[in-house]
């Protein structure tokens, strides 16, 4: 069977390796706890021995030692909890900013065909699920290895035979895990996936509950959900029956170690070697401490599997090209006006569907308007994406004022461009914040001008808090026309010389469309405009028209 390491496995291996280094302080704290536990048990053994033989030894010293070790361990618990939380938080912060940063660098064309709610849930929930890997699983895995080793050494120093008994049971732990784990490991992982799927299915059905109710299928769907859950339970229990043997094996090994050590000391003690009593008690009390980190590790096994699912989703996200070649010549474009030329540009999104643009050529002088018309899929949006630098032509070249587009730094291109789409992007914040998106540093006078020109004041004046009204999540709900006005004000404020309009009124009713159109025409004055729209709307503008048609051989009509 040919086995190749899946990207998710590779990713998680890398995370674990890096995570182990970061978790070193936490692992250190865990091992320090083991050392303190050994000391505490040493004291406890002496106290117990003293209780059995009251005259044998002074108890003040071990009592103080016991109390001191207990206090120190309590302090360690606080520190460990804090450090584990810190590790989990740091990991999530790092992963989230890298992932989001990558998606931002990739730009909107990288997200084509993926729902943003879908990606948001990966960035939020899946990365949230990686908390356990870094905060718990990685440190627990190391402590489960080194903690018991320390205890074997301590027991061995006190009594070599007890040390050997612990070593033997310790070596049997992985053996028993392997025996019970064969067959269950893979099955358990598959089962975990099935369980995640059922959760997803439940969420999906709840989200679509109105659709189910209106189709009169609520009873049927409830029965199916119950059936699926029952099936999953039966299959899960079949696996758990074997998997729980794992825990049982640990129980058995612990009992065996306990009994083994008890028997090892029983004979000499009975023979009257009473001085051995503290040693015997010490070794016996070490047994629970020996198994504690191993149990703690199996308790967080779930975290590892959750991480696996999360990793699969994360590596499936679109990744930016490994190294985007830097623009060969770095220059900016003067902002007096922008002339555009397409020279034999061809572009294909998807090989299977053929080219969207085929040897397209046109020129648009500065401060003129061009309408792109044609059915959906004819390449209107593609031309805009190319001009925005989110996609690059496979052949041919695009120039701005004679300079090839890819010789521009992205920031310079962004500075000269403004776009208004079907539905403007509005984020949760005030209306003013949203208008200032393009130029946060604009003066109040400039802001006032933009608001006047876009006729935003028409509706903000009626709001009690005016421009400071919060919109979005839990805030004021804007109508489609009001939202477009904000987008227009944004473009006025930015004062970019290249204006891209992508079906800006498609979502509006005819009356609102007229109002918005007037503002757009005002905005178009003194700018180079490319407008993608349906035919009727395009008639409202004067300028050139590029009919992308269905033939993929576009022709220009000079209307101006």
């Amino acid at each position, binding site marked *: 069977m040919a086995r190749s390491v899946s990207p998710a496995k590779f990713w998680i291996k890398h995370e674990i390796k890096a995570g182990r280094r970061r978790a070193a302080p936490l692992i250190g704290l865990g091992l320090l706890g083991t050392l303190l536990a050994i000391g505490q048990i040493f004291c406890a053994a002496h*106290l*117990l021995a003293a*209780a*059995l033989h009251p005259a044998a030894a002074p*108890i003040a010293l071990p009592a103080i030692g*016991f109390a001191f070790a*207990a*206090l120190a*361990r*309590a302090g360690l618990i*606080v520190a460990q*909890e*804090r450090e*584990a939380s810190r590790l989990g*938080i740091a990991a999530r*912060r790092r992963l989230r*900013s890298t992932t989001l940063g990558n998606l*931002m660098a990739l*730009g*909107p064309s990288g997200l084509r*065909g*993926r*729902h*943003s709610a*879908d990606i948001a849930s990966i960035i*939020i929930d899946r990365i949230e699920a990686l908390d356990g890997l870094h905060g718990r699983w990685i440190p627990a895995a190391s402590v489960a290895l080194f903690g018991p080793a320390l205890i074997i050494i301590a027991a061995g120093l006190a009594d070599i035979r007890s040390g050997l008994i612990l070593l033997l049971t310790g070596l049997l732990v992985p053996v028993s895990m392997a025996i019970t784990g064969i067959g269950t490991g893979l099955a358990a992982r598959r089962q975990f996936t099935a369980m995640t799927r059922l*959760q997803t299915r*439940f969420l*999906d059905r*709840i*989200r679509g*509950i*109105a659709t189910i109710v*209106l189709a009169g*299928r609520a009873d049927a769907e*409830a029965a199916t959900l*119950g059936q699926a*859950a*029952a099936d999953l*339970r039966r299959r899960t*229990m079949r696996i758990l029956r074997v998997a*729980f043997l794992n825990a*049982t094996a640990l*129980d058995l090994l612990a009992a065996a170690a*306990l*009994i083994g050590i008890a028997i090892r000391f*029983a004979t000499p003690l009975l023979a009257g070697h009473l001085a051995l009593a503290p040693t015997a008690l010490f070794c016996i009390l070490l047994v629970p401490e020996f198994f504690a980190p191993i149990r703690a590790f199996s308790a967080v096994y779930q975290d590892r599997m959750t991480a696996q699912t999360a990793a699969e989703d994360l590596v499936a996200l679109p990744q930016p090209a490994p190294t985007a070649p830097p623009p060969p010549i770095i220059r900016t474009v003067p902002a007096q006006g922008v002339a555009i030329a397409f020279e034999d540009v061809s572009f294909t999104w998807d090989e299977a569907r053929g080219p969207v643009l085929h040897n397209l050529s046109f020129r648009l002088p500065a401060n003129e308007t061009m309408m792109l018309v044609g*059915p*959906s899929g004819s390449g209107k949006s593609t031309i805009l994406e190319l001009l*925005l630098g989110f996609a690059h032509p496979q052949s041919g070249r695009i120039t701005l004022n004679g300079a090839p587009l890819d010789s521009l730094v992205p*920031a310079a291109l962004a500075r000269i461009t403004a776009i208004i*789409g079907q539905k403007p*992007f509005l*984020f949760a914040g005030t209306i003013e914040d949203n208008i200032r*998106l*393009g130029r946060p540093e604009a003066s109040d006078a400039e802001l006032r001008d933009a608001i006047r020109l876009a006729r935003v004041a028409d509706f903000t004046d009626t709001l009690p808090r005016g421009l400071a009204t919060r919109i979005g*999540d839990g805030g004021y709900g804007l109508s489609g*026309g009001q939202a477009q006005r904000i987008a227009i004000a944004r473009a006025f404020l930015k004062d970019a010389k290249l204006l891209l309009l992508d079906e800006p009124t498609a979502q*509006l009713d005819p009356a609102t469309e007229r109002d918005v159109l007037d503002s757009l025409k005002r905005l178009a004055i003194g700018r180079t405009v490319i407008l993608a729209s349906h*035919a009727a709307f395009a008639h409202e503008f004067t300028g050139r028209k590029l009919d992308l048609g269905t033939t993929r051989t576009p022709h220009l009509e000079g209307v101006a």
Partner: protein
Amino acid sequence: MPTRSVRLTEALTPLFRIVALWRAQRPILLAGILTALAALAAGIALMAAAGDLIGSATLGIALAVPSVLAIIGLARVTLRYLERLITHDGTFRALAALRVWFFRSLAFGAGGGLGYRSAGDILARLVNDIEALDGIFLRILIPALSALALIPVLIIAIGRESPAAAALALALFVIVAFTLPIRAMARSRQSAAAEAEAGGALRTATLDTLAGLREIKVFGAEGRMLAHVQSQESRLFTAERTLARHTGTLQALAFLAAQAALLTILLIHGTQPVAIVIAAFVVIAAFETAGILPRAGIIAGRAAAAAARVLEAAETPPRVPDPVAPATLPAATSLTFDAVSFRWTPDAPPVFDHLSLQIPAGSRIAVLGPSGAGKSTLAALALKLAAPDSGEIRLGGTNIATLRAQEIHTRITWLAQATHLFADTIANNLRLARPDADDQTIWAALDAAQIGDTIRTLPDQLDTWVGEFGSQFSGGQGRRLALARTLLSPAPILILDEPCAGLDLETEQAFMRTINETLANRTLLLITHRLTGIEKLDRVYRLQNGKLTAATR
């Protein structure tokens, strides 16, 4: 303190009510509890026997106990195994029952309305709440009952030697098993609220950023949006860190209490040294069991808050209850709005003000109006998702207030703006509207919705998987799939609410042409913000200021 105990009962009530829901699962849950207690007893007996053996041996007394020890040990191991099996089986049964109960309660209660008000994220949050209830039985109930059962054991084991030491150890035990967990519960309830709020803000910020990526890049706002997302994330982490600090402190306190109890026992100078060793071993085992309770308190705090929300949502009655004695569904399918007035909430502006509309069977009517004018509310009223404040809606001449909502839904099908596509195959998504539809009928519906040709190019055809939120398909394609589902429905009245949102003009026109041809005798109520100009309609109305006026195209 009475107020504190009142608050505690208040917090625990939702949890008890969830447990009470598991009526059918009661025998297995009870069996789980009994096995858990038996396993606990065996564990304590094992520790006591081990203490006895060791204590006696160090005194030079040979006891014939190793075989007894082995038997108890074996019993303990077996009982633990059975406990794990039975409690897990019971948990899975209980959780499945809980999910089905929630789905049913929501479906027959507020669900239709909630879904209609496009509250997808509220519903998603509720699903998270249901998941937060997963630990109630295994991680809260069983440890708490085990701790209760240990109280008499401690009294007997220590009290024999020293009543004073027993009293002290018991006090410490109660602190670990009950006082600290209750504190933890209160803390985590506070923090859960803060975390939920911060988590919601983080989700909104992330969604904003992804949805607006194009404009964010054009306006050079990448850094600012990333910083915005990170500041929301930091709020979440701050809440988490506070809780982690408290958790750490509580666990350290629980540990210290256990060690103090052990030290107390070790310092007893009793007459029977062996009994002291036994007591010490029993104390170790007892506090080990109680030691997980502070963390259970944290889980309980979250679960209690979640349970309260789940119960509230599940028990919200439908906005429009069904009549006690429903009238029989008339055969006629004319739809009439007669002087209907409506507002969503008493303080909201009226959506309709004495609105009247006649939709004869088989007619084609369009209602135009800007977004927010209340066009979709027409559909909600007709489907009985909401009831008019005054006036009457009649289906086939019968006031729909006297009909059962479920029966009305067999007559009226609705393509809503937020119609959900399920993570399932295309065929199953469509069969929701007509479970007995054969493949040929499904293809016909897909063709009518102008997506049949696209599906034919896919390797899996009708078995193609529609991803979550329909993410395998573009917005326009998803819209057409939803449309195909609506067309497949056998209901005689179709309400299409912005059927062409997300479609370009050509597709829209092609679609309208198909509608013109395929509707046959079905009634059409088309709700849209503009017409393409090729619709074949009997009447067109404009909705303005809560009233309809006849409109010219």
